[in-house]
C-alpha cells in the first residue's frame, strides 16, 4: 500500500501501529519519538489508576526534582536574579541519558539543601538584626522617657505617699539632685519596655487601661522607619512603648498582655550610663551582623546566579523526562518477556521515519532485539491530523475552533485561506487601510523570530498568531479598496471617468461618455456626489448576493466531493442533487436576474427596468403573474418562474424522503439475506468473535501464543466501537431537520451575506466622517499656525484611523467573515465528527507549558 501524499485538502492518512519495545530501551525509544512528535499513544491501562502504573515511582521522583527547580526559580525571583532565557541556549536539549537525569536529580537535591540552609541562616540572621534594631530603638526612645520621667519622680512619689506628706516638702525638695538619683526600684515602680505594631497600639492601650484600672503610666513614640519582617518581607511600622506601674503582679500582668498582643519586650536599664553602654554594644553587634548578612546574601546570590545559568535547560530536561514516563505509563508491560507494548496512531507517511528512528535508538543502545512496529487494522475512527506550517496554521485553527473534521473529509481551511480574508476585504475595502494592515503584517512577519521569543501580551499575541491571515487580508483589502475606489475615503482617479459633468463641468448632472465603461472598479466621479449612496448601495447589495451565491454553491459542491470520497451515493442523490437544484432554482435564478438586468441596456430599448425584489416576491406569492406584465425582465419570464418554483418544490420531498427510505430498503435487504449486526449476534460471544478477528488480522500477535495477558490486552481495543443499530425513526427525524434547515437556510443565509454590504457601507461612511471631522477642518487653516494645527490634526486622524478604522472595524469585519465561514459555508458540507490528533511531542509539551 503506497500512501498518497498528504495534503491540506484532506487530513493525513493514519494507521494504528503497535510497538514492541524491549524494556531496557523503553525510555530512550519514547523520548526519541517525543522529539519526532508524530505518534498519538493510546492509553492501554485506562482501567488502572495513576498509582498502580509501572512508572509511577519515576514520575514521583521527577515531580520532586521539578518542585526543587521551581523552588530555585522562586528564590531567584525573590532575590531578583534573572534566569538565562531558554532561547539563549545553543544546544537543542537532546534527550539526556538516564545517568544524566540521576546526576541532575542529585545535584538539584544538594543544591536545594544548600540553598535552603543558606536561606535559613540568612533568615535567622535577619531576625536577629530586626531584634537588635528594635532594641536599639527601645533604648533610644526609652532613654527619652526616663529623662522626662525622672523629672516627675517626685510627683509620682508624692502622689504615692500623699498621706503624710508635708505641704512644703514639695518646695523643699525640688531642684535637689538627690531626688533624681533615686531609682524607680526604690519606689517599687517597675516598668516594661518594648515594641508593638502601630495598628495594635490603640487596642493595647485600651486593654491595659481596663485591666489595670488606670494604674499605669504609659509612654510611647513612633519609630520613624518601618521594620521589615524577615519572614514575610513585609514592612510594618511599629511603636516603642514604655509602661511604668506599681507592683510586681501588675508588671507581670502587663508583660503577659503585651506578649499576647504581639509586642516584643526588651530589657532596658534605667541607669543612663548602663543604657549608653547597652546602645554602644547593640550598635557594634548590629554592624557585625550586617557584615555577616552581607556575606551570606552574597553567597546565596552567587549560588542562585550559578543555578540561573542552567535552570531553564534543567526545567526543559525534566519536563521532557516526565512526559516520557507519563507516556510509558500508557504502555502495557509484559512481565514475562520484559517488553513494553504500545499502540499509537501515526500518519502513514511518517512510518518510515518512525522505523528509522527506532532503529537508530536500537543501534545506539547496542541491543540485539529490534523494536517491532506492526500495523493493525481496526474499525476505530482514526484521528484527524493536518500538517500545518506557519502560513496555514492560522487558517486551520479557525476551522478547528468550530469543530474537529471527520477523518479524511474535505478540509474547509484550504479554500478559507482565500475566502476568509477576501470576505473580510469586501467589508473592509479601503486601499489606505489595507496598506496599513498589510504593512503591519509584513512587519510582524519580518520580525517573526524576534517576536516569537519575546513575551507578548494577550491581545498582541493573538494578532501575532494571525499575522499571515492579516497579511492576506491586507492584500485583498488593497484590491477591494481599489475596486471601491476608496483610499482613506478619498477617491482614486486612476482611469478616465465614464462621466462628464454637464454644463461645462458645472453640473449638477452628468452624462456618460459614449460607449465607455470605467474599466476597473467604481467610477471615482461618484465620490462626494449627492446620489452616490443610491448607486453604491444598489451595487454593494447585489455584490453581496452574488458573492454569497458563489460561496454557497462552492461550499455545497464540497458535499458532492465528500459523498464521492466516502462512497455514499445516497448522499449525492438524496442530499446533494435535490439540494443543489432547489438552491439554484431560487437563488441561482436571483443571481442570474441580477446579472441579466445589468447586461441589458434599458435606456436603449426604451423600457423601464423591473424591480428584482418585487419580482422575487411575486414569484412566490403569485406564481405565473408579474408585477408589470407589460414590462418583463425577458420574454417568457412568468412561465420560467413557474417552472423554477415547481422544480424547487419537487426537490423538497425528494430531499425529505429519498435518503431515509433508501437506507431502510437497504437495511431490510441485508436482513433478508441473513446478515446481522455484531451486537445482535446469537450464540457466539463478543469476545470470541474479536479473538478470531485479532488472530487473522495481525501476524504479530502470534508471537504471544496463548498468553492470556496479551490476548486480553489486544482484544480490549477492538470491541470498543459497536455497530450502530438501524433506527428508521432516528434517521427520519435527522433528515426532516436537515431538510427544514436547508430550505430555510437558503433564504436566511442568502440574506446573511448582505452583511458584506452593511459592513462595507459602515466602514466607508465612518472613514468619510472621520476625514470630514479632522483633516478637512485642518485644511481650513493657513500660515504657521495652520501648519502646527495640521500636524496635530493629522496625528489625531492617523491614530483614529489606526485604532478605530483598522483595529476596531477590522475586528468586526473579521468576526463577520468568520461567521460567514462557520455558519453559511460550513453548514453546507462540514460533517465535523472527528477525533483530534494529539501526538506525544516535546515541542507541543513545551509550548503548552513554556519555561520562562
Amino acid at each position, binding site marked *: 500500500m503506497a500512501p498518497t*501524499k*498528504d*495534503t*491540506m*485538502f484532506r487530513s493525513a492518512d493514519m494507521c494504528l501501529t503497535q510497538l514492541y519495545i524491549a524494556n531496557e530501551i523503553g525510555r530512550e525509544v519514547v523520548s526519541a519519538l517525543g522529539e519526532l512528535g508524530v505518534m498519538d499513544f493510546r492509553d492501554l491501562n485506562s482501567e488502572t489508576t495513576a498509582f498502580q502504573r509501572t512508572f509511577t515511582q519515576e514520575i514521583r521522583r521527577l515531580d520532586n526534582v521539578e518542585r526543587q527547580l521551581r523552588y530555585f526559580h522562586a528564590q531567584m525571583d525573590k532575590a531578583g536574579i534573572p534566569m538565562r532565557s531558554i532561547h539563549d541556549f545553543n544546544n537543542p536539549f537532546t534527550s539526556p541519558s538516564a545517568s544524566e537525569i540521576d546526576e541532575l536529580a542529585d545535584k538539584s537535591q544538594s543544591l536545594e539543601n544548600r540553598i535552603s540552609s543558606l536561606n535559613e541562616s540568612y533568615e535567622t540572621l535577619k531576625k536577629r538584626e530586626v531584634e537588635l534594631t528594635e532594641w536599639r530603638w527601645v533604648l533610644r526612645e526609652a532613654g527619652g522617657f526616663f529623662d522626662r520621667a525622672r523629672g516627675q519622680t517626685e510627683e509620682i512619689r508624692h502622689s504615692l505617699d500623699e498621706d503624710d506628706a508635708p505641704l512644703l516638702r514639695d518646695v523643699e525638695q525640688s531642684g535637689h539632685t538627690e531626688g533624681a538619683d533615686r531609682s524607680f526600684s526604690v519606689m517599687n515602680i517597675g516598668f516594661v519596655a518594648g515594641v508593638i505594631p502601630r495598628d495594635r497600639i490603640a487596642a493595647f492601650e485600651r486593654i491595659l487601661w481596663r485591666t489595670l484600672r488606670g494604674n499605669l503610666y504609659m509612654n510611647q513614640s513612633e519609630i520613624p522607619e518601618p521594620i521589615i519582617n524577615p519572614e514575610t518581607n513585609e514592612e510594618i511600622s511599629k511603636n516603642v512603648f514604655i509602661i511604668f506601674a506599681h507592683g510586681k503582679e501588675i508588671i507581670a500582668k502587663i508583660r503577659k498582655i503585651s506578649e499576647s498582643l504581639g509586642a516584643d519586650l526588651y530589657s532596658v536599664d534605667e541607669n543612663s550610663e548602663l543604657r549608653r553602654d547597652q546602645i554602644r554594644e547593640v550598635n557594634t553587634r548590629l554592624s557585625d551582623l550586617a557584615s555577616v548578612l552581607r556575606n551570606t546574601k552574597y553567597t546565596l546570590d552567587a549560588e542562585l546566579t550559578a543555578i540561573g545559568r542552567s535552570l531553564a535547560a534543567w526545567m526543559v530536561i525534566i519536563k521532557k523526562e516526565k512526559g516520557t514516563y507519563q507516556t510509558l505509563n500508557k504502555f502495557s508491560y509484559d512481565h514475562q518477556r520484559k517488553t513494553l507494548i504500545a499502540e499509537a496512531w501515526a500518519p502513514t507517511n511518517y512510518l518510515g521515519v518512525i522505523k528509522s528512528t527506532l532503529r537508530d535508538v536500537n543501534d545506539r543502545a547496542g541491543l540485539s532485539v529490534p523494536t517491532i512496529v506492526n500495523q493493525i487494522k481496526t474499525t476505530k475512527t482514526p484521528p484527524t491530523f493536518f*500538517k500545518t506550517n506557519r*502560513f*496555514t496554521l492560522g487558517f486551520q485553527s479557525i476551522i478547528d475552533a468550530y469543530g474537529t473534521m471527520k477523518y479524511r473529509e474535505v478540509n474547509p481551511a*484550504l*479554500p478559507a*485561506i*482565500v*475566502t476568509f480574508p*477576501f470576505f473580510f476585504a*469586501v467589508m473592509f475595502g479601503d486601499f489606505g487601510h489595507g496598506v496599513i494592515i498589510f504593512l503591519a503584517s509584513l512587519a510582524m512577519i519580518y520580525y517573526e523570530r524576534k517576536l516569537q521569543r519575546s513575551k507578548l501580551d494577550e491581545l498582541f499575541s493573538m494578532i501575532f498568531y494571525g499575522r499571515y491571515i492579516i497579511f492576506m487580508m491586507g492584500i*485583498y483589502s488593497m*484590491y*477591494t479598496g481599489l*475596486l471601491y475606489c476608496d483610499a482613506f475615503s478619498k477617491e482614486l482617479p486612476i482611469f478616465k471617468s465614464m*462621466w462628464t*459633468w454637464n454644463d461645462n*463641468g*458645472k*453640473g*449638477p*448632472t*452628468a*452624462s*456618460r461618455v459614449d*460607449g*465607455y*465603461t*470605467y*474599466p*476597473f*472598479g*467604481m467610477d471615482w466621479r*461618484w465620490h*462626494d*456626489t*449627492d*446620489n*452616490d449612496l*443610491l*448607486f453604491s448601495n444598489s*451595487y454593494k447589495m*447585489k*455584490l453581496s448576493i*452574488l*458573492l454569497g451565491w*458563489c460561496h454557497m454553491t462552492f461550499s455545497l459542491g464540497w458535499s458532492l466531493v465528500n459523498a464521492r470520497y466516502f462512497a455514499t451515493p445516497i448522499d449525492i442523490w438524496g442530499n446533494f442533487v435535490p439540494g443543489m437544484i432547489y438552491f439554484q432554482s431560487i437563488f441561482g435564478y436571483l443571481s442570474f436576474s441580477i*446579472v441579466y438586468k*445589468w*447586461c*441589458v*441596456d*434599458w*435606456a*436603449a430599448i426604451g423600457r423601464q*427596468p423591473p424591480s428584482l425584489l418585487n419580482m422575487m416576491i411575486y414569484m412566490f406569492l403569485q406564481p405565473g403573474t408579474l408585477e408589470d406584465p407589460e414590462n418583463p425582465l425577458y420574454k417568457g419570464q412568468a412561465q420560467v418562474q413557474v417552472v423554477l418554483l415547481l422544480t424547487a418544490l419537487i426537490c423538497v420531498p425528494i430531499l425529505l424522503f429519498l435518503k431515509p427510505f433508501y437506507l431502510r430498503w437497504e437495511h431490510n435487504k441485508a436482513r433478508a439475506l441473513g446478515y446481522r449486526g455484531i451486537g445482535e449476534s446469537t450464540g457466539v460471544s463478543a469476545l470470541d468473535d474479536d479473538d478470531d478477528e485479532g488472530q487473522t488480522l495481525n501476524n504479530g500477535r502470534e508471537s504471544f501464543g496463548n498468553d492470556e495477558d496479551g490476548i486480553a490486552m489486544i482484544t480490549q481495543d477492538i470491541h470498543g466501537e459497536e455497530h450502530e443499530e438501524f433506527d428508521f425513526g432516528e434517521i427520519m427525524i435527522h433528515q426532516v431537520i436537515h431538510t427544514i434547515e436547508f430550505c430555510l437556510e437558503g433564504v436566511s443565509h442568502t440574506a446573511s451575506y448582505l452583511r458584506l454590504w452593511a459592513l462595507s457601507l459602515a466602514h466607508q461612511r465612518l472613514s468619510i466622517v472621520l476625514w470630514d471631522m479632522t483633516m478637512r477642518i485642518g485644511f481650513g487653516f493657513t500660515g504657521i499656525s495652520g501648519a502646527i494645527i495640521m500636524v496635530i490634526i493629522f496625528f489625531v486622524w492617523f491614530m483614529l484611523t489606526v485604532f478605530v478604522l483598522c483595529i476596531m472595524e477590522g475586528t468586526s469585519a473579521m468576526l463577520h467573515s468568520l461567521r460567514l465561514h462557520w455558519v453559511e459555508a460550513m453548514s453546507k458540507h462540514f460533517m465535523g465528527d472527528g477525533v483530534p490528533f494529539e501526538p506525544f511531542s516535546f515541542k507541543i509539551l513545551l509550548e503548552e507549558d513554556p519555561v520562562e
Partner: protein
Amino acid sequence: MANGWAPFIGLIIVAVFCAGAWFGSPKGENQTVWRSTLMLSAVAMYLMWVITFLAQLNPIIAPIRYDIRPEDEIPR
C-alpha cells in the same frame, strides 16, 4: 469599443492564470496550498471585478453633484 467583451477577456486571462498556477506552483508538500490559494484568489478577484464592471455597464442613474457649481450660479 468592445465593452461587453471585457468580462470574457478577463475570464480568459483568469483561466490562463489558473492554468499557470496549476502547473507552475512550487513542487513539494505545499503544492496544494499554492495551487488552491493562487487559483481561488484569481477567481475571487475576477468575480469582484466583473460584478463591479457589470454594475456600471448600463447604468440606470447618473451622478448628481451640486457643490461643483460656483455659489452665484446655483439655479434657484
